[in-house]
């Protein structure tokens, strides 16, 4: 059990690798240790009477995996699925969960100490979903708090 919770990277290196993806023009990232895989597997079965943020369930190599619509979580309305839409599969509390994003980005290496507190009102959404922002050469990378995004209680059933 040496999975590292985001923001608690081994102190000696101070480096954190972030898997990134786009939501519109916004670049977002999650610590790569939390990501199991990123795929374009979008054959979803919708779940009746599930919370609005649940896009459906899918078969990922024999496991039934919940797929969350990140746009809905962030209050941006449901995502339009196209061929670039990607599914970022993370492991959270022993469960595999997919997070839908618009398209996949690169892996970015960031220094822990360079991650700043998020400015209020990033991407027009609630700040509690963000761990911080990291300045890249060409813009900002928003570091997501996966656990907050997946917090169940925050979304009453639709």
């Amino acid at each position: 059990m040496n999975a590292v919770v985001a923001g608690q990277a081994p102190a000696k290196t101070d480096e954190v690798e972030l898997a990134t993806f786009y939501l519109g023009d916004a670049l977002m990232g999650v610590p790569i240790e939390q990501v199991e895989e990123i795929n374009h597997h979008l054959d979803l079965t919708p779940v009746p009477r599930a919370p609005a943020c649940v896009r459906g369930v899918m078969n990922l190599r024999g496991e039934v995996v919940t797929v969350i619509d990140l746009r809905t979580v962030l209050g941006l309305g449901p995502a339009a699925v196209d061929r670039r839409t990607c599914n970022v599969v993370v492991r959270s509390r022993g469960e595999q969960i997919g997070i839908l994003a618009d398209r996949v980005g690169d892996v970015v290496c960031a220094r822990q100490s360079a991650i700043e507190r998020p400015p209020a009102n990033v991407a027009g959404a609630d700040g509690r979903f963000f761990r911080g922002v990291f300045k890249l050469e060409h813009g900002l990378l928003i570091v997501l708090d996966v656990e907050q995004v997946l917090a169940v209680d925050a979304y009453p059933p639709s």
Partner: protein
Amino acid sequence: MDEREIISDFVIESREHLADIENQLLAIEAAGADMDLELVNTVFRAVHSIKGAAGFLGFTTVGQLAHDLENVLNLVRNRQLVPDATVTDVLLRSADKLRAMIEDIDHSNGLDVSEHVTALQKIVTGLLAEPIAPPAALPPDTAPEAPAGSDREAARPSEAAEAAADSTAPPTSPAPVAPAAAATRQPRPGTAKATGSTHGAAGAVPGATPITESNVRVPVTVLDQLMNLAGELVLSRNQLLQTVSSADHAALGSVSARVNQVTSELQETIMQTRLQPIGTVFGRFPRVVRDLSNTLGKQCQLTIEGQEVELDKSIIEAVGDPLTHLVRNAVDHGLETPEARVRAGKPAAGTVALRAFHQAGKVNIQISDDGRGIDAARLKEKAVAKGLLTPEQARVMSDREALLLIFRPGFSMAEKVTEVSGRGVGMDVVKTNIERLGGTVTIDTGPGAGTTIHVKLPLTLAIIPSLVVRCAGRRYAIPQASIRELVRVKASEAATRIERVKQAEVFRLRGALLPLVRLDRALGLEQPQEAAAAKAANIIVVEAGHLRYGLIVDGLCDSEEIVVKPLGRHMKGCACLAGATILGDGRVALILDIAGIASHCQLAIPEEDAADGPAADSVQETQTLLLFSNHPAEHFGVPMELVARLERVRTDRIDSVGGQQVLQYRGGTLPLLSLEQHVTCKARAEAAKVYVVVFAAAQREVGLLVPEILDIRSVPTQIDTLTFREPGIAGSIVFEGMTVRLVDLHEISRKAHPDWYDSQPVPQSPANAVPRVLVVEDSDFFRKQLAGFFEAEGFEVQEAEDGAAAWNALAEAETRFDLVVTDIEMPNMNGLELARRIRDDGRLGDLPIVAVTSLAGDDEIQRGREVGINEYHVKLDREQLMAAAARLLKAQARRALAGSSA
């Protein structure tokens, strides 16, 4: 290995040590002075190991209790003490406490065990006070084994000091121990830290997580088998990859067959690793029964059969509490006091029998007692008193329905609420829990004749048979266990047969109102066009608890065995869903929760409306038939009551073994019959898939191969028993222009497998060597069927075509009958009149009467009861009928016995 793992191992090991301690202690008690010393040693060693490890790990309270327990056991071992009931009680209670502490080991040091310690020490000192007994020295072998060197060891009172305390100042001995326990409450830094770090890494739930519950012991042979299968799977995969790349279609077929076979075997073997004997649950009952009968002042013998029957681990774990409740009920409510039993002519000691056995791919568990039985009339009084029923409802309620009252929430069977049971939170929970496991509970009882509760459970939960249905373009799975039947209503009839009662849709199914739920609406799905009324409706009749309703779906896909997968945490609030599964095409289908849908839709049984509906307008008797054809030109029918269910299978799954056709099916073998082999008819055409009509015969399931199902229809019972009569064909009817021959399923199964019918137990008759039954029925067809049922069970049958003929037969009979089975609606003299005459006759007065009827309205049942009919059953419900016959004969025999001894 960190400390957490060591503790977890300790817990697992201690659990195993304590697993059988109750029965061992009880066996020691039962043997008295002739006790098996090896058994005592086993218990002693188990407790001793726990003591040693607990001391090493700093669980001082566990260590202390184990120590005192060990002291008493040592006396027993040295033959200085023969445990009587009191001593055994103390030992049992201490073992319970020990177990409870081990289950919550992290908090064990904070618990107070002084009560148990004092009681144990009293036993030791009480014995020491007797001058003959030598001083209770500690067993010499404990000293070297005692964990040494642990820094926490000092906090624990040393054994020598304790031993000294034992012999010098016994009554106050808990005193020196208590502060020691308090002192050790904190110093477990190692454990605390370990917990903390696990918590941090996994982000798990705060607090102490349950330590285990995820261990299974697997025989090495099974592991070897798994390894072999895994090897074969790898080989098959390689073959598959090769074949696919070479695009060799012919070879692909054989490779896929191989993969198929290996996968099934793998599945089966893995399932085996999860199987555990039910004995692990049964093992606790001797103790339960002993304690309970002591408390209640009853005498009770417990017999256990079928301990070795295996069930899935998860079911074993879940079924313990419901079974315990049933066993307690049997002792508390079922058995009478010894005095009452003797008065009733029974032996003073009652018997509770537990029996587990496999049948038809399910595990059956029976809990029976030979006690007072359940009195339906009293149940009704009670329900009225509690306001669960109106007096009017109670009046028209049949006995069988009344028995179901005990499964209602808030209903307690006990006359007075005892400490033991009767808190009114019992049977409803039992039923719900067992149904949640995919099982069923039924009751078989009669006043004075004892009670038998039948529990049927599936072998495993992980894979369940289910029906896949279509709704709003998606597929959903419904567990077969909740499905009672399927009904298709034609588009032309949908408007008239689906009625509306106060906004709710209902369907009239054989005279009863069935509430309907449209699945798309229940799930909040939008359908493209609202043309539901114009379409044919597929109604799936499902049952959840005591609620039966119809689920309207768009279409039926297939009957499949599905692997149940849990839904993620975001869907915990979805009451309508029980889980998900992956279908053959790799897509996910959701599994419906039948009880959840009912409560989501706030379904209730439309009781008031059922009474004033146009139910009783059809006086003509009808019979529901499953119509099918074997060859397109020839039509056949079987009574629906005899059909357990329908399956659709691929013909290549049917094996031919020794000239007989069988289907590998739900973990067992289903023998199959082909119609053309047993009756005169054209052979069925070869097809890729066939239906299998599954029915019960000779206490097993049998399948009849049927290429095409035509319909399920209610038809009049004017049956021609002459024209087409031959063995296997009971008669024929002309229906909507076609001639339908009625297949006698029992006759053809008897023809095909005469050996099945050889060794059937014949019910005992008090008066005759062979029990005699009089079958009274005006319809030739039904009379022949009924007579056939009874003959098959070993009865001597006399037939009568109406009440008058029956009355003559009874009057002229040289030997008396044991049972009368009669129809109600008959010319000349009807069944009610016949029953009245029998009851008024001094000689025949107590002859048991069973009424069979195809329209058992509550009013009619009530009238029947007033004239003295014992039981009502649906015509052709063979199993129920035979159970009733056996029950009534048994009660009769008991009465005869009581009468002769009085």
